[in-house]
């Protein structure tokens, strides 16, 4: 599982590198900007850069199996003593690690720039944990859809699945956001003001981990029944 996860991260090194350029941009602003004057701009940019990673987790999760099947590299991997559910676990871990690298880099940069702007930095790391949990769940949902849909449809289905609880939370009741807590976790990041001691709510994080396991089981069930070899004849 770890081998597959690290292999996934290695294969995605260029998209991860591009993602890290955003973090570099934030670091650059921290170097050149008049931080005390640009506090609110920095915070806004930090939040924006932070939530992008959730979209990228959907991209990573939704395209992982498709890319491997299309390139036929999946055949050499699954011809070894690797069960399909182990393969999926490796991909989930790989997506989470890829997003985790980004969140770690962002956490470091955010701690430095936001700390210099006078924001409490302990909050930054809690928000990064929220983001990693959101990415893990969003990536797993995308991975589940990608076991039987092409990457675009999988991304669309994932957006729909994650978006419905958010719409329900806005129109029916706030607790709907916890059905699939990706929106709850990203809202936590977006609404964080840092000015007042934040409420460190771990419930959606735990729920995201639990739901990741549930979606992984569903994905494994579906994937075990899918023909992975494209007929070449």
């Amino acid at each position: 599982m770890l081998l597959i996860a690290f292999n996934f991260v290695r294969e995605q090194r260029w998209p991860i590198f591009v993602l890290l350029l955003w973090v570099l941009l934030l670091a650059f602003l921290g170097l050149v900007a008049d931080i005390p004057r640009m506090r609110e701009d920095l915070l806004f940019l930090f939040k924006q850069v932070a939530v992008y990673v959730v979209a990228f987790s959907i991209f990573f999760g939704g395209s992982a199996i498709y890319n491997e099947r299309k390139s036929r590299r999946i055949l050499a991997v699954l011809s070894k003593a690797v069960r399909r559910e182990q393969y999926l676990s490796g991909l989930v871990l790989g997506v989470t690690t890829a997003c985790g690298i980004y969140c770690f880099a962002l956490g470091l940069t955010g701690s430095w720039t936001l700390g210099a702007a006078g924001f409490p930095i302990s909050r930054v790391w809690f928000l990064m944990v929220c983001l990693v949990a959101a990415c893990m769940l969003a990536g797993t949902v995308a991975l589940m859809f990608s076991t039987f849909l092409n990457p675009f449809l999988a991304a669309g289905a994932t957006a729909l699945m994650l978006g419905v609880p958010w719409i329900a939370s806005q129109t029916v009741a706030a607790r709907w956001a916890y059905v699939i807590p990706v929106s709850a976790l990203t809202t936590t990041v977006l609404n964080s003001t840092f000015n007042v001691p934040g409420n460190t709510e771990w419930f959606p994080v735990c729920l995201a981990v639990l739901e990741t396991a549930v979606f992984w089981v569903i994905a494994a069930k579906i994937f075990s029944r899918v023909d992975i070899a494209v007929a070449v004849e």
Partner: protein
Amino acid sequence: MTEMPAALEFDSVSKEYRSVFSRQCLRALDGFDLRVEAGEIFGFLGPNGAGKSTAIHIAMGFMRPTSGQGHMLGRPFGDAWTRRHVGFLAENVALYHRRVDRLLCFYGALNRMGGTRLGERAREVLQMVGLQDQAKRNAGKFSRGMLQRAGLAQALMNDPKLLILDEPTSALDPLARVMVRELIRSAREAGKTIFLSSHLLSEVELICDRVAVLHRGKLVRLGRTADLLQSTEQTEIVTRGVALQDFAGAVTHDGVVSITVPISTQRGVMQRVWELGGEIVSVNPVRRSLEQVFLEVTADSQPPQTDGRL
């Protein structure tokens, strides 16, 4: 006494590809039965679209059969633990772009290999396939032939009991083909089973103990290679002491006259040789090439069977 399990066994395996939207149905395998014994080199032949790769992919667990079942090394198809003892080389090899020695270690580790043995084995198999000087090169920069050799190396990493090779020599030069042929022979001598799918009939003819020909998803010929190559219709009578012009179509070499005749007329021709004062040196069934056998059994080559609206 218990029967030794087959290395590979297909039991009435059928596979249909169905299109979700157009209700098309393509039958790639149709009640396919086959038993590959342990320790043999088995040639798996068939025209394009016959279902060879489908059968291999079902055995490897990449696909599920529509009906039927099969066993590999005594365990049902798709069993991950069994694949520890299987080496597989896919047609059109695709490997990750990284240093080939590290790549082999990665594939070996997926088969639960570890420790110092992993690196040693990677060096061994690179030597076997003649890539020892390329160990530090990125597989992404390999030519197709080198990639195929690297693919063969990854299949050999776990020292498999069963080696499934789908077109292993298609991109190789003649020297590399000889090397692969010797590799396959030495694997058999080491007690391994080799299941070889190939279009290179001369290769199959040279190394395979038994051959199966698949056509339109069905097994149309199965037997020992030597038996398949023997003609049941013609015989060659080698004689001495007769004139060449006494027999139509006779040829002479090394002082003997060879006459190829239908088996039905064999007795009469021999009688005539004796009447002319000649001597029969030998009577042999005419040996055909595997290509002739292949063309004979697949003469009505058409696309695979379909039903529904195509």
